[in-house]
């Protein structure tokens, strides 16, 4: 390393900091692959849609968990809120236009996130964990009890969704519209999150994650930042839930359940949290594996998943992407040395 340059602005670290928000060469790859999937596997677009929705949901979790460092076990609360917003409005004939429906889902989920965040984010550790869990369980119970509006345990099926732009029908058997629609929404949300995490706001979130006390000391409005991040993430999770309801034309209690919250957490950690593309890698790895394994050997799948989690927690805290980065760095170091 030659770090003896006269001006600090030319320092490699300064250059790396100044340029980290730039687009990398490899960044279009996931999107190219997503479009390639559309043409290569027209029979698996239903699975593809589910995959894209999961990525979107995992990205929203990454914002709170990976960037702001809020450990939550109840993120499905917002996914479910979005899904039920879309489902109930359409089922009761109030509103079934898809794009504005998604905006409504985002607004309602953000409101729930803001309300609960204002209260919950005063606490930390086990208390926060329990409060997020209880909030989600409470919403699930509420959805179960209000069966006149929510369909209760059975949920709402055959939710009528108007065609996209008034032209493209959501056909459950040939989900081409759904796939492209979800892909476009994912792309927009991802662009938003990517801009956000490299903004000064995103930097302050990372600061809060690394050392909350010090951020207080430098005068950052820690609570306000956390609550803002929490409700933004809730809005994106709400969009993911809303779009899931639109693509599948049904809503059920599972959208609010601990299973979904735990799965998305596992996906994010598997891919690597706090690094934008972890959600993509994790979702693909998890969904493909579970798609083929879980249905054939459910018990072995659970055993393997458990082992994987233990191994990740013990040895590979940055997930698949983190391992890849470490490998890449080592390769470059050996190449530079030779």
């Amino acid at each position, binding site marked *: 390393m030659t770090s003896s340059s006269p001006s600090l602005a030319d320092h490699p670290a300064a250059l790396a900091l100044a340029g980290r928000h730039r687009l990398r060469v490899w960044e279009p790859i996931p999107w190219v692959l997503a479009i390639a999937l559309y043409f290569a596997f027209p029979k698996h677009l239903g699975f593809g849609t589910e995959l894209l929705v999961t990525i979107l949901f995992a990205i929203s979790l990454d914002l709170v968990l990976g960037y702001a460092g809020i450990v939550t076990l109840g993120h499905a609360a917002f996914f479910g809120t979005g899904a039920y917003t879309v489902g109930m409005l359409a089922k009761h004939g109030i509103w079934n236009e898809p794009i504005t429906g998604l905006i409504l889902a985002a607004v309602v989920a953000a409101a729930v996130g803001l309300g609960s965040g204002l209260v919950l984010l005063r606490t930390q*550790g086990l208390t926060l964990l329990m409060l997020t*869990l209880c909030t989600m*369980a409470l919403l699930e119970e509420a959805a179960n009890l209000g069966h006149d509006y929510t369909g209760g345990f059975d949920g709402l099926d055959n939710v009528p969704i108007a065609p996209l732009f008034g032209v493209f029908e959501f056909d459950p058997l040939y989900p081409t519209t759904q796939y492209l629609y979800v892909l476009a929404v994912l792309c927009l949300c991802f662009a938003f999150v990517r801009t956000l995490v490299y903004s000064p706001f995103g930097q302050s979130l990372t600061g809060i994650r690394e050392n909350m006390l010090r951020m207080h000391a430098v005068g950052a409005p820690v609570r306000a930042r956390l609550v803002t991040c929490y409700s933004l993430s809730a809005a994106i999770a709400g969009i993911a839930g809303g779009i899931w309801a639109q693509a599948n034309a049904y809503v059920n209690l599972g959208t609010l359940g601990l299973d979904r919250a735990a799965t998305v957490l596992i996906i994010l*950690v598997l891919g690597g949290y706090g690094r934008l593309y972890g959600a993509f890698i994790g979702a693909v790895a998890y969904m493909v594996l579970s798609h083929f394994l879980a249905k054939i050997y459910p018990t072995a799948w659970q055993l393997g998943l*458990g082992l994987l*989690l*233990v191994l990740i927690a013990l040895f590979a805290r940055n997930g698949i992407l983190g391992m890849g980065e470490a490998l890449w760095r080592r390769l470059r170091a050996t190449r530079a040395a030779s």
Partner: protein
Amino acid sequence: MIFGVDVASMLLGGVAAGMVLFIVSVGLSVTMGLMGFVNLAHGGFAMLGGYAIVQAMKHGGLGFVPALAVGFVATAAVSLVFERLLYARLYRATELDQVLFTIGLVFIMIASVTLLFGPENQPLALPPLLQGQIDLGITQYRTYSVVLIVIGIVMVVGLWLAFERTRMGAQIRAAVDNRRMAESLGINIDRLFTVTFAFGSGMAALGGGLGAEFLGLDPQYALKYLVYFLIVVAVGGLGRVTGVFYAALLIGVLDFVLKKYVPQGGTAFIYVLTILLLLWRPQGLFRGKAT
């Protein structure tokens, strides 16, 4: 009079459930308080213990009480191995890593138990002595529930004495209040933790066996009741035997009464209550003054 009897039998049922909650949760409270370790696998140890007890009775031909002892020892031994080999690596890790690790451990436990014994409920045959009704003067009640209450009271008194009157109890209390200070006074926190962890898991095993009669015992046990154990610990406060006891009674009785009178929505009430209690006293309802 009918009303009085009704209230008495309600209270008895709820208190008996609360005792089981206490027996399972007390170990979790102490280990979380000592190390700040978020151990979501605690319900898994309760389930393993329950299975050990049922198997010891079915295939070992042991009576109920010897089987409970076997379950206690076996689970404590297994948890000791886990603690030394795995948990000990994660004491200084982030909360997220601890959560992931213990969720993974629960999955492994559930899957292994399913592979070995199948997914169905394991019936636990109570000895004839504990079946049937007992006359309490004001009301007839199930013998087993009364026995559970007695066991629970004996345990809370024993643990309270061990906590407040023995040298080791004093060390645990000191370490919960201020771990660094206790360490610098020469208390071996790691060993203390290993012992309490094993003991707490053994207690969870007893709870799993004692409660199997009305909580059931299947592989999903480890996750199904975890939220209840965590609520009890969070409400009772970390590292507080008496706090956990009161919290377990409160949750047990409320849950029992609400499920009977408001079968739809009783659970929602428990969640609301927990949220309110935790917002009011984030350190737990019965946490004493930290000195």
